[in-house]
């Protein structure tokens, strides 16, 4: 047997700089109205301002635990959600604020959740990593890396079972692609033709470990692993909301018309650390790299420049959107600050459906065990 020497894996390749003006002409983008553009841009700015404000609150000691910021990745959540209809569902990991705001959850409830307040979207029971709003078909907010990927298959399974022409968008980071549950999910999705779109938001680092140091994959990139499951896959450049919309809409169409899953890899970048507790994020990557992404590949700035060039927005409009988003974020912090903490008796609520619905209770016995 010939001994083979492992070759260095190809580093994550930065895609060519996006050309928004030509990508705007693709079929899924060409008919967007000025109002739609304005809404997408506004949502991206709102996510950024919300997170910047939450970062400040964290630094002020108002927020406990972890805070995984989405800043730099906003085009993905907004682009994907812009394609959803009332039969489509979404689930993500712990970097979940952007998706929550994109589906229409309010800044107030989201900020209050970070503060652990009763007015939070999960009544202060979930925290940053665990936002939910099933009324908006948003199923979390999941804290364990890769743990949401079978749930995403399950949402798709339910849609298919009920013969609803919808799909599940299941987001994960590049750090989740080496989890067993993810591979089991890909196999089930392909085996059973589940209408699920797995979207890897590849920001290059699984916490402090670069993709190069964590993932063996084909030269074509991590999405090409889908070949092993005979599944559709594609690369998308996340710095362009138009590229996101184009690539994801094709996968959603495949899911909804043919009940076929896809694995998409969206190249993106986070400017902040893995979480705010990640003090080393300028050590495992260079300042120059962060600066380059901020300056040349920022999805919000690139979209703004396109909108101004295309005369869909002017400088004044941009400024107004930004100021309104800042004001909204500030107001949400005020709202969170003034909201009450949940009462102590809330600790034992929302544990069991049956305990919360005593009129429909059929079980007997003791369910909670503190003396």
């Amino acid at each position, binding site marked *: 047997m010939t001994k083979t020497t492992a070759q260095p894996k190809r580093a994550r390749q930065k895609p060519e700089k996006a050309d928004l003006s030509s990508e705007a002409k693709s079929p899924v983008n060409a008919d967007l109205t000025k109002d739609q553009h304005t809404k997408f841009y506004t949502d991206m700015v709102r996510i950024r301002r919300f997170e910047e404000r939450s970062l400040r609150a964290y630094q002020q000691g108002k927020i406990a635990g972890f805070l995984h910021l989405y800043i730099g990745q906003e085009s993905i959540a907004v682009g994907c959600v812009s394609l959803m209809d009332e039969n489509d569902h979404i689930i993500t990991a712990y970097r979940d604020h952007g998706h929550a705001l994109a589906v229409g959850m309010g800044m107030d409830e989201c900020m209050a959740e970070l503060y652990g307040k009763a007015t939070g979207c999960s009544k202060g029971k979930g925290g940053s990593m665990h936002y939910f709003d099933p009324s908006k078909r948003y199923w979390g907010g999941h804290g364990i890396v890769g743990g949401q990927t079978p749930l995403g298959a399950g949402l798709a399974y339910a849609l298919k079972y009920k013969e609803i022409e919808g799909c599940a968008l299941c987001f994960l980071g590049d750090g989740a692609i080496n989890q067993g549950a993810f591979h089991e999910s890909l196999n089930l999705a392909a085996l059973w033709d589940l209408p699920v779109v797995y979207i890897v938001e590849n920001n290059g680092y699984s916490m402090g470990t670069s993709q190069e140091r964590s993932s063996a994959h084909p030269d074509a990139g991590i999405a090409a692993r889908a070949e092993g499951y005979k599944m559709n896959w594609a690369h998308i450049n996340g710095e362009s909301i138009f590229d996101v919309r184009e690539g994801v809409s094709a996968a959603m169409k495949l899911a909804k018309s043919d009940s076929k899953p896809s694995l998409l890899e969206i190249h993106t970048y986070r400017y902040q650390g893995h979480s705010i507790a990640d003090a080393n994020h300028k050590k495992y990557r260079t300042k120059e790299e962060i600066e380059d992404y901020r300056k040349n590949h920022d999805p919000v700035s690139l979209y703004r420049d396109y909108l101004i060039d295309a005369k869909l927005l002017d400088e004044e409009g941009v400024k107004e959107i930004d100021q309104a988003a800042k004001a909204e974020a500030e107001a949400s912090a005020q709202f969170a600050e003034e909201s009450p903490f949940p009462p102590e008796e809330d600790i034992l609520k*929302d544990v069991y*459906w049956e305990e919360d619905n005593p009129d429909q209770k059929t079980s007997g016995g003791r369910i909670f065990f503190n003396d």
Partner: protein
Amino acid sequence: MPEITYRQALKDAMIDELERDENVVIIGEEVAQYNGAYKVTEGLLKRFGPKRIVDAPISEAGFIGMGIGASMLGIRPVMELMFWSFAYVAWDQIINNAASVRYMSGGLINVPIVIRGPANGGTGVGATHSHTPENFIANTPGLKVVCPASPYDAKGLMKSAIRDNDPVYVMESTIMYNDKGEVPDDDYVVPIGQADVKREGSDLSLIAHGPSVLVCLEAANVLSSEHGIEAEVVDLRSIRPLDEETIINSVKKTNRAVLVEENKPFCGVGSQISHTIQSQAFDYLDAPIQRASALDAPAIYSPPLEKKQLPKADVVIKKALEIC
């Protein structure tokens, strides 16, 4: 009343619920074409078709997690684990996701899933296949866990489990699958969280769940015929929720208790029961509470020694005689 096996009783429960609710699906390894590794689902594919009865690949984390996701959207999956010992490869889904999603969403979501399968030792399959994780499950708020020990309870508890809006984990026993008992044809349920006194007695309470209930009944007969001791056998049936009232009433009557289980002793179910008794019936106890659990090592393979590792009637009798 017809006499059927524990296995048939479980299947009858699933048939009833599959017919009653179109959102009930059976998913697991070998449940459909192979007719079930332990034949619990035999014939269901033929009767209900491949949409309702689904063979899963060997991917417990994947298919159980998928079931949890589907249940959030209103499907009622009944997931078979070929052995509960295989739960550990899906532990994140079983413990983290199923138990926590409701809580973390502030009560907006519920997870009406059933996970079922055998959880017992004593069959010569060694340490990896002989786990009894009901104590681990019961330690997790958000989950319910039941351990039927008779065909009647198997059917009634399975039906309750499938109708429940919270995750209910059903621990069966390969040793009991062929046991026969009287089971009505009609649509009855055994409510979760109600213990059952399987034998009345006045001198001693033997408190057990799962296969240990049968051990206790055997021990009770010997205690009666050879020692003149009338033991009451309390079958917990459900671990969480726990029917403390039945336990306490029995101990108040008999003033003595032996807690029997195939679980390991440390943090086993008996630890909790023991605490319950001392805190609610301290003044009624005439002797220290005794426990008979599995000997505290991984499940041994060697068949004669495996029989020694699990608490059998002779151990229960010995423990009983120490306090009677």
